[in-house]
């Protein structure tokens, strides 16, 4: 299988993630969408590393996964705090910035 297959997979995963982020009402669902987008990026990195013969992409991916974990933890913490103060995790209720 060539590089294009990996890239297509990554693009599809990214699209699914973005769709989730834009359409899910639940904040946790949005976080899941973000995870998907992150992983699509990781797939890209790994695929390019594999096909270019350089390990740097691999190393970068390991870092990215670590950061993703931290980010997920941060995101969940924000959601919990949000629930504590606003008693809801539905994104369309969180419109304090409405003009």
């Amino acid at each position, binding site marked *: 299988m060539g590089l294009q297959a990996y890239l297509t997979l990554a693009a599809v995963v990214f699209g699914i993630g973005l769709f989730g982020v*834009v359409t*899910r009402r639940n904040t946790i669902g*949005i976080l899941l969408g973000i995870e998907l987008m992150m992983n699509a990026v990781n797939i890209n990195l790994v695929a390019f590393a594999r096909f270019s013969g350089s390990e740097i992409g691999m190393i970068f991916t390991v870092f990215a996964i670590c950061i993703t974990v931290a980010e997920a933890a941060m995101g969940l913490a924000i959601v919990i705090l949000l629930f504590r103060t606003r008693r809801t995790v539905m994104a*369309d209720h*969180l*419109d*304090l910035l*409405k*003009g």
Partner: protein
Amino acid sequence: MGSGYLTLVALLTPIAAFLVLAIVAPLRRAGRPAAYFSILGAAGSLAAAVSGWRAYDGTGTRLVWDWLTSQGKSLATIGVLADETSTVMLVLVALVAFLVQLYSLSYLSEEPPAALGRYYTYQSLFAFSMMGLVLAPNLLQLFICWELVGLCSYLLIGYWYQKPEAARAAVKAFWTTKAGDVGLLIGIVMLWKVAGTFDLGELRAMASGNQLPLAGLSIITFCIYLGAMGKSAQFPLHVWLPDAMEGPTPVSALIHAATMVTAGVYLLHRTAWLFALTPDVLLIVAWIGAFTALLAAVLACVQDDIKRVLAYSTVSQLGYMMTAIGAGVSVAGFFHLLTHGLFKALLFLGAGAVIHAVGSNDLSRMGGLARRMPQTAIVFVVGTLSLAGIPFFGGFLSKEEILGSVWAGGLVGPFALLMLVAFLTAFYMFRVVFLAFFGAPAVRPAVAVTGFSPIAHYDAAGHHGDHGSHEHDPPAPMLLPLWILALLSLGVGIYSTAAGRILFFGPAAEAGAAEHAAPGWLTPAAVGVAIAGIALAGLTYYTRTISASSLASLFGPIRTAALRKFWIDDFFEGIVAAATLAFSSLIGWIDRYLVDGVLNVLSAWTVTTGDEMRSIQTGRAQDYVYGLAVGLLLLLVWVRWSLT
């Protein structure tokens, strides 16, 4: 030393005094020392001016330095031009300036020291400016000094600037003369454009060599005349001079009688050869002069303020001089300027002595002063007789020459006006004499209502409540100038009457004036109307054979009009008020509808657009992410397309 250097010394002495007084503040604030210093400068200036006049050898001396050099050529010069006109005029200016400064020492003795120092600083500056004007070898220097003189007049009229009327009068004088000065400036510049020089000598040579284009010259001379009109208080720009009497009386004597107001006449005399090329403008000058003389004489008849009578009389006499210039015999006008300078300064200083004694300008508060102030009365009568044009007094021959030259010039209309003015002059001046110095002493309340100084030395709380003891001849520093001026006036009168010709000038000028010799009946006629005027005044205000009120009712409408100053002041104020209101309402409309309107439309538009646009901002994070993704996608598509 030649007369050129002597006149230069006379010119530089007062400016040195001014600079010292202006820079050395402690000396100025000390008051009397500053006064002594300034008087010393004026005395030195007078001595130099007199010796410069004596040393004058019949040929003009020019002492000029290059000024405003550009491309190796001097655009103008600066210096002195000593000829038969300027040296005589310089003596008059220096003399009156010196006497007035001496007189002020006593007249303003109760002023605070700082104010006195300020007064003498201005006086020195004025003496310099006027002398610079008189000696100016070119029109540019003349104009600069002309403006300086106007400035000094403003400063000195507004000397008691705490008094609203004085401040108002100063501004009025400044603006009115400035209206004329604009004309003068335009005229000078236009003349420069035509002739390429400011220099009086070169211009004169061009004029006599017929090198000046006659087309358009009338406009130039008329513009120059406008300047003279403002300074020399010709109708309709005469309105400032009576108001200028708000200044101290010595200032009125110096500036508004003897020197500054004569600057216009002097300028026209200086440029008489130029005006001779434009007879149409000369005709205007003559008619306006005669009309001004009559208007002011009528106004002088109804004034109750002694200084205002003298002020209108000055306007009237300036009209006389202008008429002579308009008749083409400027030397007669200039001679009258000199004699008038002497006796009008005398009259003003005499009036100052009276005001100082009585504590009021109002004629009805005076009366019977001849017994208490005999010396003042004598010199005042000498001045009055000079002004009335009685033989053997200062103004006789000069007035005679003017009437003769106007008659010889074929100006019958102005001549008739001037004869009428001669009658009125004698009448109103003797009205003052009889009201102030003869008759019963007026019943005066202990409190003088119109104190002449806001410093309140005659106010209710003052210690001068007992006027009976205060009414006596003034102290020596005030009396001496009066006697000097009276004797000079008398001397010039006797000498000129005996000689029967204009004094001070070379034979050429005298011969020129002699060509316009008056017809034989003129002298008796002129003296006759003057005596008739005196007689009418005597009958009305001395013997009271004719009641003043019936005389007034005889001239009912004219009197009413004259009391309102012929509505000229009202007219100007109306014009100014109407113009100001119209202009401000126009500006108001522009501000309200154009300036504010544009801003209001802009702000309304901003508010509406903002209202419409705010619905985009839902506040939901997902919508923003959606926008971001779509935007990024569009960007990618665009980049892709633009690359191919």
